[in-house]
């Protein structure tokens, strides 16, 4: 499993705490589809910071970084310098 796939599966597992069925397509817009709410957004930030040792800052607040499982994995990869 590639690093990006592993991150996607980790975020999917995390998503499972917030939605009935986390088996969503990797490119599904999690926020636009109304699947998750603002509480998820902040917990997601804390999760990726704790899990991947990265700091999410003002500059990272771009919905394109958090929109989907794929986007989140891409963001984590860029922050880690993968």
């Amino acid at each position, binding site marked *: 499993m590639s690093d990006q796939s592993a991150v996607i599966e980790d975020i999917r597992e995390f998503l499972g*705490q917030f939605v*009935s069925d986390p088996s969503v397509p990797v490119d599904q817009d999690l926020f636009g589809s109304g699947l998750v709410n603002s*509480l998820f957004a*902040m917990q997601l930030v804390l999760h990726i910071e*704790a899990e991947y040792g990265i700091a999410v800052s003002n500059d990272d*607040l*771009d919905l394109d970084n958090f929109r989907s499982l794929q986007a989140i994995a891409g963001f984590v990869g860029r922050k880690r310098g993968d």
Partner: protein
Amino acid sequence: MGIERSLELSNSDALVAEEMEAFAQREVLPYASSWDKAEAMDPEVIRSLSKRGWLGALAPEAYGGQDMDPLLWGRFCESIGTASSSLLGLPTVHGMAIQAIARWGTDAQKETVLPMLASGEAIGAFALTEPEVGSDAANVQTVAEATGSGFRLTGRKRWITFGNIANWFVVVARLEDKPTAFLVPSTNSGLKITPVKDMLGFRSAELANLHFENCEVTEDAILGRPGFGFSHVAGTALDHGRFCIAWGCVGLAQGCLSASMEHAQEREQFGKPISEHQLIQRLIADMLVGTRAARGLCLEATALKRAGDPRVIMETSIAKYYASQHAAKASRDAVQILGGTGCSSEGHVERYFRDAKVTEIIEGSSQIQQLIIARHGLMQHRKEKRKKATNP
């Protein structure tokens, strides 16, 4: 993710915690009722908090704060909460502004505003609630329009804790229909601040209504990014607010318990202290157990906060929900135990009773907490079921 459950203060922090408790008992509690009656906070006690470095203690050290350990901060809120809920409102909202800026501010915002907030030279406050918007906070009606050189804010904010004396406001408005946070100084000529009086509780918390009319701010006043004002900036602030209120409620409940036990052992009826009457013992037992349970939930949230664990948000909601409900019950029972004395403003429990009710409403009402907690519990349950189905 392993969490260190045995929470202890360092030796030096334990001494500070003792100093905080002594400060609250000596310099806050004896005056809290008179501040309550005057509906104003004594500037001297605010200066004392600043001088000790406690008001801005949560700010990063790089900006003049202390990066205070969450457990010591919790103990601080508990100590102040025992003495004056109104005063607790100050580190709560000031800390909300600090946390929001430290977490999501630009370098320039951090360098300009944080040192002032850390030293207590300036006071920060958080402006989210509006005349028509309370629990549905993502739907704020205050509007920000781009002007070319910045933004123009128009709208009203209501019941802003310490709004009367704040120098900086974190304001949530809609920019092109996206919730967006702005950092606005109280000196802005387009901001009118009106004191709010005669509230049920938190009467010396310097509440104010804010009216933004042609309130022009520069481009760099945005805190975070457009669209992230509620989810991330307010989310960070409110999580801190709930943490403070939860710990403060533990303090308030402890105050009720101490006053009840003191009175019940001194007051005699039917030839013996009322503490020997079983129905009084029942009230005291519930008060004691509930206070310990609330403190336990606060400690759980504190452990997660220390670890930067995302579960802290939910556990803080749980702690705030339970602690505020318990504080309200403890204060009702304390008034009952103290009888006429409990109804008199000469003591503290009458004030505890009024303030405790407010804690069930602020930083997310009990009903909103119930919704969040129940949904969380149900999702956790489903997740466990899925796991069992996958790995029977």
